[in-house]
């Protein structure tokens, strides 16, 4: 009974909303008051709604500005807009034309001293502009509206990137404001071929989205494919660039990220100069870079800033770290429970001695410790910073030490888990680090059942998966398979800057050379 009433009520409300939406006239009237009423009704007269009606200069013409408080730059509206309209025509000794359309044109072309002006005649455009922080100017007697760019809200300043801090390199990071972000990219790349294609995304959230690439470098097919996939996005809210990433990625079942995200403008700049495409979204400092390959998960921007020997060694170190992060606990399990003969005898004795009191098989022991570690990590992120350190002490010292003392795990296991944890943090891409963490549990289980044989089969499966995976048509495993020898200079090692004279071959860039031949005459 109650439900019946409730449903009825719901239905009624729904009906009401639909009615309201249906009889919303999308036309702009010539009468100014009718327009204001109409907009107020559509927006339901919110408290941050600002409207101001005044007359133009000394004429009798009425006009009105409409904007949303907080989204606009108030000083700009006062100084440039209202003042100019009220006084500007007089000081310029200009006649106020009789027709309203003429006034509008004159305002746009001669009077208003601001650069972002547009005349529109569709109400939806007006509404979207107002809600994005622009100001609409209505004049009595015309159905055209002048939109004045007046965006100006409080935003976070440019800060050091939180998730990708480097020892050496620029300290600037992207912010939540897309204008600031495009500015940061433009400042890195002053090429006239830099393209920033804007569009809106999200049926209701209507976020600004910018696709950024360098024409003449990037393969046109990649841009076309990125745009095609972006166009298919039909979702009410795009909360973060992660939403876009998940919508446009090739395989949603893969643990590996097929689109990189970064907070660093210098990383974006170098990616688009390699022939990749960057996707910027308003409201998030995380910029997407596509396509992505497996090896790019290991490349940190710092590799290029340090001298090449350091860069190369660090890169190799990361590959080793990835190997440890995925296979180390599994190897421990395999050796301890299947192939004890492979451990050197002295070490075997000490491991056996340490494991003597441990009641569990190695696989249980390892799973327990890894699960604890994942818990600690997750808890560490959630906790406020001052308490976060407590977790470190509780986790690292108390649990580690106490678990050994209690005879639940062996000390060797603690060492293995610790090395694994450190290794997984050495991967520059956070998403890749998570992928390796997931894979680790797979290899551990395989090792627990089949020992080394299980590990090698998992290894083969990971290889199959990576070779099969694609990111925007680019095979994930390139430049190893398909093979491009020349690109290895910037993959396994980081060759001296002067030696990497070409852009990556696997990106099939239009402009292939990175370093000029050098003019001998100069």
């Amino acid at each position: 009974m109650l439900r019946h009433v409730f449903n009825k009520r719901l239905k009624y409300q729904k009906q009401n909303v639909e009615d309201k939406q249906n009889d919303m006239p999308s036309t702009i009237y010539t009468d100014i008051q009718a327009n204001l009423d109409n907009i107020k009704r559509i927006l339901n007269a919110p408290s941050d709604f600002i409207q101001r009606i005044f007359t133009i200069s000394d004429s009798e013409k009425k006009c009105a500005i409409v904007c949303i408080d907080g989204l606009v730059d108030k000083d700009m509206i006062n100084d440039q807009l209202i003042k100019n309209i009220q006084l500007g025509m007089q000081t310029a000794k200009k006649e106020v034309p009789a027709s309203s359309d003429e006034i509008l044109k004159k305002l746009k072309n001669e009077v208003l001293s601001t650069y972002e002006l547009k005349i529109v005649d569709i109400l939806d455009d007006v509404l979207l502009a107002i809600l994005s922080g622009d100001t609409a100017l209505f004049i009595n007697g015309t159905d055209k509206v002048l939109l004045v760019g007046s965006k100006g809200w409080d935003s976070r300043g440019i800060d050091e990137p939180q998730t990708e801090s480097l020892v050496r390199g620029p300290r600037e990071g992207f912010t939540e404001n897309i204008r600031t972000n495009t500015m940061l990219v433009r400042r890195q790349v002053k090429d006239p071929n830099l393209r920033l294609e804007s569009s809106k995304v999200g049926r209701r959230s209507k976020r600004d989205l910018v696709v950024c690439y360098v024409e003449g470098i990037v393969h046109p097919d990649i841009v076309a494919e990125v745009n095609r996939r972006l166009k298919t996005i039909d979702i009410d809210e795009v909360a973060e660039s992660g939403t876009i990433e998940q919508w446009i990625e090739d395989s949603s079942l893969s643990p590996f990220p097929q689109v990189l995200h970064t907070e660093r403008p210098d990383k974006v700049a170098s990616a688009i100069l390699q022939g990749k495409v960057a996707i910027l979204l308003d409201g998030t400092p995380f910029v997407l870079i596509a396509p992505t390959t497996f090896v790019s998960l290991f490349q940190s921007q710092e590799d290029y800033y340090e001298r090449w020997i350091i860069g190369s060694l660090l890169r190799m170190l990361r590959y080793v770290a990835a190997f440890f992060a995925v296979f180390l606990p599994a190897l421990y399990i395999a050796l301890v429970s299947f192939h004890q003969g492979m451990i050197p005898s002295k070490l075997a004795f000490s491991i056996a001695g340490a494991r003597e009191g441990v009641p569990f098989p190695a696989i249980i022991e390892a799973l327990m410790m890894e699960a604890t570690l994942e818990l600690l990590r997750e808890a560490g992120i959630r906790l406020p910073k001052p308490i976060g350190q407590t977790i470190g002490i509780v986790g690292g010292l108390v649990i580690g030490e106490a678990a050994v003392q209690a005879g639940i795990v062996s000390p060797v296991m603690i060492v293995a888990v610790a090395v694994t944890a450190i290794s997984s943090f050495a991967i520059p891409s956070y998403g890749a680090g998570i992928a390796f963490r997931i894979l680790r549990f797979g290899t551990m289980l395989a090792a627990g059942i089949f020992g080394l044989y299980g590990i090698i089969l998992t290894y083969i499966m990971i290889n199959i998966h990576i070779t099969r995976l694609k990111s925007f048509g680019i095979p994930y495993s390139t430049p190893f398979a398909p093979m491009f020898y020349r690109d290895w200079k910037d993959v396994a090692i980081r060759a001296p800057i002067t030696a990497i004279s070409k852009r990556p071959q696997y990106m099939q860039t239009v402009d292939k050379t990175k370093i000029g031949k050098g003019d001998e005459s100069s």
Partner: protein
Amino acid sequence: MKSFEYGDSEVGRKEVLAGVANMVIGFGVLTLPRTVANATHSIDGWISISLGGLSVIFFAGVLAKLISRFPKKNLHEFTSLIINKPIATILTFLFASYMMLFICYEMRVVAEISKLYLFDQTPTEVICFVFFLVTIYAVSGPSTVILRLNLLFMPIILFIIFLLIVMNIGFFEFKTTKPFFQTGWSGILRGSKETIFSFLGFETLLFYNSFINAPKNTVKFTIMGMSIPLLLYLLVFVFVVGVFGVEVAENTLYPTAELAKRVEIPGGFFERFESVFFTIWVVTLFSTASMAFDVTLLAFTSIFKKIKRMTFIFFLSPLIYIIAMSPQNFAETSIFGEWISYLGIGFSMFMPLLLLVIAMMRGVKGNG
């Protein structure tokens, strides 16, 4: 979705090279020193290996010549052009069945070796089953992926063999290799016959031809690919004889494994190198098995165009598993392997030669 230029359905010459090498290198390298030493009774086995290898390389060249005459066509398609469609269908069907038996053998061997060196209690059936699941996972994707995997696995395999050789340099004694040139011609020829078995596998190209994008280079890169196993076999044989002497080589089941046992990692980081060696060796056996399975599927789908690849995987897999499990012991497996090798000689050496001769006589060429 529009595919990217090299992304989807083509492989280059490097994949041909690695694919051929990886397909050929397999189980053979483990037993080769024994079989050759049994025939020649001296270090002269290297002549047998070279002789056998070179003759197989000649036939591989013939096969490559044949397929490069018909770019982007597989066995079924070009045989229909050369002879006619019914015969092409019969040949392809036989070829597919041969490849299927080949996987069965390969799988069984993996299981036997793993049981010998990695496990002692796990039943062969289970070891084999897991391996087969991974193979099925591989073949359920596109063929180009399997060919590309070779590029990833090749360096690992060469590295482990290289390690095996380098670590044994200290044990190599020239004394044991002497005397030279003791074996008569009959012995050497018998040795070559044994060698030939270990060089089979390149016949997969008959179907992979439809993915090769540079037909001009096929002959060159096939021969280059074949010379990798030749060099490898020579090195391994010389080292086995050099380290252990001929008698030991003759009487050990897997002399190459003994070589691995000899290895001592400096610093005693870990022991029992042979376990590591076999673990890595699973990789090459896997590439051989997956390519064979893939070619089986390609062959069957080229005959029955309407049936999907996945349907074939679904119905062939249990069959393959049952056949693989049917030999009762190791001796039976060996006999099984021998029969498959004889079939292989027919399919990889005589059939392409015959087809090439007929194609040349009739002047048939692909329209590529």
